[in-house]
């Protein structure tokens, strides 16, 4: 579970969020929506411990995220960014195996259990058939799914994803969100992803967090839809 307490986030000349307090629970899939430049990625980076320039607190359970060392943090949350990773000679299975890094020894030796978790993660995202393929010979959508499998292999209670649907076609977008929803509900994970797909947010997520600078409205999906906040923020009729 992630709890924000009076979080103020932004850059020197621009405040993105001011005094925000809310929490993201386990077992729920939350969509983070907002206009371009509203600070969705900045918020996700802060939640992942990559951006520590904020006021207030981000609590993971009982601890403030800035007090956790990199290793502890890597067992609590996994992140999937928008960065395109295309490395020649790096096979999908090896990428997913890197997700086991927090649990392997100094040289990254995989145990039988690690191998099974890697295969399972590839299976969950439907990429088992690609496990021996190298990353430079795959489509953007396939790479994206491999990076998600890597996050799954990391076995963290929290998964953050920055626009995971952006490289996917329509059926795959819904398929991915169905997968995230299933993971959240069946494996009791706390999953938060940013997206521009309002329809997906409205139809497939348990709750919606809407960035309306400098506020963050976080409501169960139905309440959010009825509140009219989405239309107001996006300037829709």
């Amino acid at each position, binding site marked *: 579970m992630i709890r924000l307490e009076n979080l103020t986030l932004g850059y020197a000349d621009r405040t993105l969020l001011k005094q925000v307090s809310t929490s993201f629970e386990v077992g729920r899939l939350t969509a983070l929506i907002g206009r371009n430049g509203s600070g969705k990625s900045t918020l996700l980076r802060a939640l*992942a*411990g*990559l951006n520590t320039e904020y006021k207030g607190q981000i609590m993971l359970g009982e601890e403030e995220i800035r007090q956790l*060392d*990199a*290793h502890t*943090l*890597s*067992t609590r*949350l*996994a*992140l999937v*960014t928008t*960065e395109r*990773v*295309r*490395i*020649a*000679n*790096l096979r999908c299975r*090896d*990428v997913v195996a*890197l*997700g086991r*890094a*927090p649990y*392997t020894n*100094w*040289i*990254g030796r995989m145990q039988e259990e690690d191998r099974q978790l890697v295969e399972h993660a590839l299976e969950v995202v439907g990429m088992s058939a690609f496990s021996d393929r190298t990353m*430079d010979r795959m489509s953007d959508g396939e790479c994206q799914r491999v990076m998600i499998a890597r996050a799954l292999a*990391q076995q963290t209670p929290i998964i953050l994803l920055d626009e995971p649907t952006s490289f996917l076609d329509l059926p795959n977008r819904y398929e991915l969100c169905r997968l995230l929803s299933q993971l959240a509900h069946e494996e009791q994970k706390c999953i938060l992803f940013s997206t521009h797909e309002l329809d997906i947010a409205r139809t497939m997520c348990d709750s919606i967090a809407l960035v309306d600078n400098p506020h963050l409205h976080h409501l169960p999906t139905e309440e959010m839809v009825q509140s009219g906040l989405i239309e107001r923020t996006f300037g829709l009729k």
Partner: protein
Amino acid sequence: MKLTHPIRFTALALLIVVLFALDLAVGSVSIPLREVWASLTGGEVAASTAKIVRSIRLVKAVVALLAGAALAVSGLQMQTLFRNPLAGPYVLGISSGASFGVALLLLGAPLLGLGGSSLIASFGMAGAAWVGAAVILTMVAILSRRIKDIMVILILGMMCSSGIDAVVQILQYLSSEGALKSFVIWTMGSLGDVTTPQLALLAVAVVIGLVLAVAVIKPLNLLLLGEQYARTMGLNIRRTRRMVFLSTTLLAGTVTAFCGPVGFIGLAVPHLARMLFREADHRILIPASALTGSAVLLVCDLISKLFTLPINTVTALMGIPIVVWVVWRHKTIA
């Protein structure tokens, strides 16, 4: 690990043995392999032949072996750390720092009227180069503590080295012909100027540098996905950077100190290793680069002896086609 990897490693090791033997046989006087063997094992052979093999060629071949492995492994680490296929051991200014040290010694000291002082003579070019390289890398490392973006560090390193090169040029401009010539010859590199006690020092530095490189195998694998991902997978970025910088100073810094700046091995060999092994995993790439580096530098040494060329021109002429070939064949590189 695939089954073919042990075969490839064995083949490389055998190739190195062959090249090493050839390197002992080839030179201004060509010595038959049988006599090379006799010289090494204390068999029956002319005293002068035994002396050539043991105190000249053997030392030089071992230097080539160590220097090739060292430059290749430090180049690999730089390419992964900076996620840049054009990075090499010298991107952070090691060679500039080393030439600055040597330039101060060969060109600066005479200008200040300290030419023949025994202090400077005993300190030697290797010492000056090593201190120069270490000072530059320490400077870059201290600057990089305050910088998150690795690209900024890369640019700072390159600017530092360009700035120092300019100062070295000023020294060259002001220097006498004789001093200038010794400096220019140093910049062409040489594997043969290493004495036996220096070789011991070189070997120790290279071994420690390689051990450090092995210790950062897992961090380097994580860095393949970029620093952001590496951090969310539990990597301590600062510690990793420190270790990689230290390893590079020991490997490339020491080699440059004793052999002068040897170009292109550090840049080209990691690509060659990736291509030979079709791997991105550093558990394979570190030993693969080390062995390939040794083999390539032995070949370069052989060529330099056959055509009496400075080693640096040979490594450049060998390295450039390798890089062009890799880029051409793959169109993309790691």
